[in-house]
């Protein structure tokens, strides 16, 4: 299934195409953000309790107002204002969205204004009903552009926002051996994912790739190569001539 896209016209005549983030990317970003804000809020509360009570976790008697204002009010503010504040400050991104490779844009592809970002966050109250963001999740799954009610109200979309790393450009230009750009892409992709793949998978894929780009290598020779050798041979394919 291909991801839905929106196409924006530009004065240059070259359209801007934005890939809309699906329920998976959205949920992934949300879960990361939820952990971050929960940890920061709890960290603040825990730290403030320790400072306030001088190392004990029991609230001192008669310290009601100061204790509540110093410990719980900031923790609640962090938890509830994490999304609106960071989305405005980071122009439609949050740490979770950045890690998941998504960002909020308007339907015209622009960076949303503070009003739109606040409005999409006000509707979290509705999207989070009745529990675990069920309303939001249902609308994301059911709508063509995978938007929750807050996005519908604010006129925003969540689009993919992968980092365009310099390696994407250099790998296609500085190779030796007359490899096609597609082959170079595959090698770069494998090297990028190398640390996240398990030993068996990465060596299998690397051998299969090397068998195509270095046909002079026999199957026995390839089988003898270890993970490090395979990797260095692939890196060499991307090295400048």
């Amino acid at each position, binding site marked *: 299934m291909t991801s839905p896209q929106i196409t*924006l016209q*530009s004065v*240059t*005549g*070259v359209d*801007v*195409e*934005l890939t809309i983030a699906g329920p998976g990317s959205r949920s992934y970003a949300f879960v990361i953000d939820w952990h971050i804000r929960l940890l920061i809020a709890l960290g603040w509360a825990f730290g403030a309790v320790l400072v306030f009570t001088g190392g004990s976790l029991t609230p001192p008697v008669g310290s*009601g*107002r100061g204790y*509540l*204002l110093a410990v719980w*009010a900031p923790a609640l503010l962090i938890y509830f204002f994490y999304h609106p504040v960071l989305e405005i400050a980071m*122009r439609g991104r949050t740490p979770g969205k950045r890690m998941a490779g998504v960002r909020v*844009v308007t339907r*015209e*592809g*622009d*960076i949303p*204004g503070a*009003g*739109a970002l*606040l*409005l999409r966050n*006000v*509707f979290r*109250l*509705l999207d989070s009903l009745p529990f675990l963001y069920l309303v939001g999740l249902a609308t994301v799954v059911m709508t063509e552009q995978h938007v929750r*009610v807050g996005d*519908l*109200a*604010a*006129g925003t979309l969540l689009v993919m*926002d*992968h*980092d*365009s*790393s*310099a390696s*994407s*450009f*250099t*790998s*296609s*230009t*500085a*190779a030796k051996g*007359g*490899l*096609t*750009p*597609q*082959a170079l*892409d*595959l090698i*770069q*992709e494998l090297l990028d994912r190398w640390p996240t793949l398990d030993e068996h998978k990465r060596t299998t894929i690397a051998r299969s790739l090397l068998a*195509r*780009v270095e046909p002079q290598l026999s199957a026995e020779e390839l089988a003898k190569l270890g993970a490090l050798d395979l990797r260095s041979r692939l890196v060499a394919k991307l090295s400048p001539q």
Partner: protein
Amino acid sequence: MTETAPSENARLQSWATSRVAAWADLGSILDGLERKRDHTVADALRAIELYRALGRDLSIVRRTLPASRMTRALAQSYARLHAVIYRKPHNWGEQLRRLFRDEIPQVVRELRTQIQLVTLLFALTAGAGWWLVGTYPELIGLIASDDMIDGVEQGRLWTEGILNVAPSSMISVSILANNITVSIFAFCLGVLFGLGTFYIIAMNGLMLGGIFAFTHQHGMAGELLKFVLAHGMVELSVICLAGAAGMMLGEALIRPRYPTRRESFQHAASKTSKLLLLCALLLVGCGFIEGYLSPDPSFPMVNRAIVGFGYWVVMIGALTGRLFGRKPA
């Protein structure tokens, strides 16, 4: 992996090599342009030149290397630059002034009918609550807690001694949070074709009327009125305003004014959310009054009426824009 002919492959590689220097710093240039707020003319010209160049490059790679990493990376950079170039100009001070002086009063004028209808619904349900609890006193159990009922039956209002339980600041914050939540619900639930909004408004009306009837039966309605007088006028008005905004959301879905329901809903939400911002600010004031003045038994009734009416006049001034320098039409 041999889709591209060797000579074409070499040509492409040589072209990409000639362009890679221009693409090397794209990330940092785009970060800088996105972060900066006040771009100079030189920045703008540079961005436009880069936009044109990226557009050219992207059209070439889209044709020759579709679905490649290079195409994805260039498309990503092009989209980011597009967003920067098409970003609307902004001036926070002027925008805020325009919002409070012109835009919110305009929304209020458009919402006049909805405000009247929601206020009428609130008044009718409050009357119904009064009549129901007056006629069937046992119904108070549906809208008040056992502690509240026991207290009133023993001649003690639940608001008495509230300051001994928690400090004013905390009372203000918790009341503020609760009122804002009710207002946001009254607004957001308009998405259920207005029915959610009607439910929230009607329930609040029923509860208010029922509680007043119950306290009246025990000769304490005056005490309750004394408690709510200073903050209640604005607080209840704000809930009705939020309800009117929610009603507009429902109406946008039932009778769309734009080609699609989505567009209609989005326009209604974006317009009425401005009013919601003013409502939230007004509720901050209500929270302070309710936390500091209303529970204070030594604060005289006349002063409460002055504060309540005075704050209501401020609210009307804000809704009509007069408070922010708008001249009468």
